[in-house]
């Protein structure tokens, strides 16, 4: 069992009409590992997150999580298995307080009781527990997305562009948080445009371009790979 990866994608493909969003993508993720997912706009990063979290179903290929095949498992059932995510544009429950947002996920998504206050403290929104989510800044909403995911006790957390629009000190705080979560054994797939940010938290990145995997390995090697350079600057 110990040799089995937490998440295994094997030949995952996803098409939208004539557009191939993911073209036979295969990779594994181990517990506690942080994997950066990078690539130009439209390269399939968010589609990959959507397929893994179950928002989309893959057209072909297989998806295994903790040894179980989950291709056909709907998103809400993947949550108690241990998969959760944040959204590129945060999607809090409007007209509900910060605490209620986290409490809903803790109640419906977790398999054991969750200390909601501890989650709120972790995402640094303890002082905002009774504030309506519509009154939060985008940065706070992003952390709330993360907190809602954490409330379901994930083993794998898919983080979609949490760094976009954050200033350097906010980025630092988020980076520390993600590293802390990984140290606790949570595997993370982090979609990010801010490469400095990725560099701080991981040395394993996967580069996607037009739905295909171009490169897998340390970030510093990626910048020396001619395929990757071509994809990013259009050579």
């Amino acid at each position: 069992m110990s040799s089995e990866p937490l998440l295994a994608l094997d030949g995952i493909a996803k098409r939208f009409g004539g557009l191939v969003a993911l073209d036979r993508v295969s990779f594994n993720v181990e517990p506690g590992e942080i994997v950066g997912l990078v690539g130009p706009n439209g390269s399939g990063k968010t589609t990959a997150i959507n397929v893994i979290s179950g928002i989309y179903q893959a057209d072909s290929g297989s998806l295994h999580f903790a040894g179980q095949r989950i291709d056909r498992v709907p998103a809400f059932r993947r949550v108690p298995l241990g998969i959760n995510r944040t959204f590129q544009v945060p999607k809090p429950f409007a007209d509900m307080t910060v605490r209620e947002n986290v409490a809903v996920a803790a109640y419906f998504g977790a398999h054991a009781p969750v200390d909601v206050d501890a989650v709120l403290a972790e995402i640094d929104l303890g002082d905002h527990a009774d504030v309506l989510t519509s009154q939060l800044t985008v940065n706070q909403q992003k952390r709330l997305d993360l907190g809602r995911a954490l409330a379901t006790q994930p083993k794998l957390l898919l983080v979609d562009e949490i760094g976009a629009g954050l200033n350097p000190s906010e980025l630092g705080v988020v980076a520390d948080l993600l590293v802390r979560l990984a140290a606790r054994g949570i595997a993370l797939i982090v979609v990010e445009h801010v490469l400095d940010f990725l560099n701080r938290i991981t040395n394993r990145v996967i580069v996607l371009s037009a739905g295909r995997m171009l490169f897998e390995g340390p970030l510093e090697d990626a910048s020396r790979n001619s395929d990757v350079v071509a994809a990013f600057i259009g050579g």
Partner: protein
Amino acid sequence: MRAAVITLAVIGATFLIAPHVYGNRTLLFSMMTFIVLAQGLNLLYGFTGYLPFGYVGFFGTGAYTTSLLVLHTHLPVLLCVVAGGAGACIIALVLGPLLRLSGAYFSIANLAASQILYNVVSNQDLSKITGGPYGLKIDQVYDPTASYYTMLAILLLATGLAAYFRISRFGMALRAMNADPTSAAMAGIDVVRTRLIVWLISAGIAGLAGGAYAWNLSVFYPDAVFTLQISVFAIVFALFGGVGTVVGPVIGAIVLYALYNGVGISAPQYFEFIYGFLIVVLVLFLPNGLMSLLARRGIRVL
């Protein structure tokens, strides 16, 4: 929880005492019917955002299921009324795929479904089974008192369900789904199943009401239980009081139905005018209903 108990007690006491101080029982019964329909519609629209224009279809289904069972079986009437609710649930289950539609598409498809039901039931060729355009007669079980208390029980049930939706964990899931279905799924909520449950409950309430209504009338034409006016009344009453609340639809139905009886019967032309005016005012100034007036002043309403 206390607010819910008080609300139910007040409604119950009101309609228990009302027949002893006010002679027009038929009016009281109709008023209760419309409160139930406004509340039943509120269960779906107020808590999931699906507006069923064809809500009357479930009411009619209940009326016919109950009446046909009374005519062809020897079951107690009360059981036939319960079966009316079950019949409406079955129709709702068949129409379940409509929930894949959203917004106006759902409303219109549901409206069409209710018209199909009406046309089937009132079809001349089915006269031997459904009574066709001549309707049904179940006057052998006519009992205005028992049907009155049955409708009151249904009213308390519908209102109790609204309170449950408002204060329970289930209700919390509904609010989350309403705000963002995708996020709700990632919070572990089975959005499709939860929506279907609410849809069945809402349809069941209309079916029960239809059954009790048929029992109270004991003779009716298909138009009486399938007219679109019933849907429109339920929608307007619920919106006027405030959807997504427990007391809103009750207050809305009482106020507007009283108005309808005060002005509408004696001077229908003025009623249409006042009604139209009210709807315009409502949409422009009070889109969240009467209850939002209280909420704006910081008064928490159930």
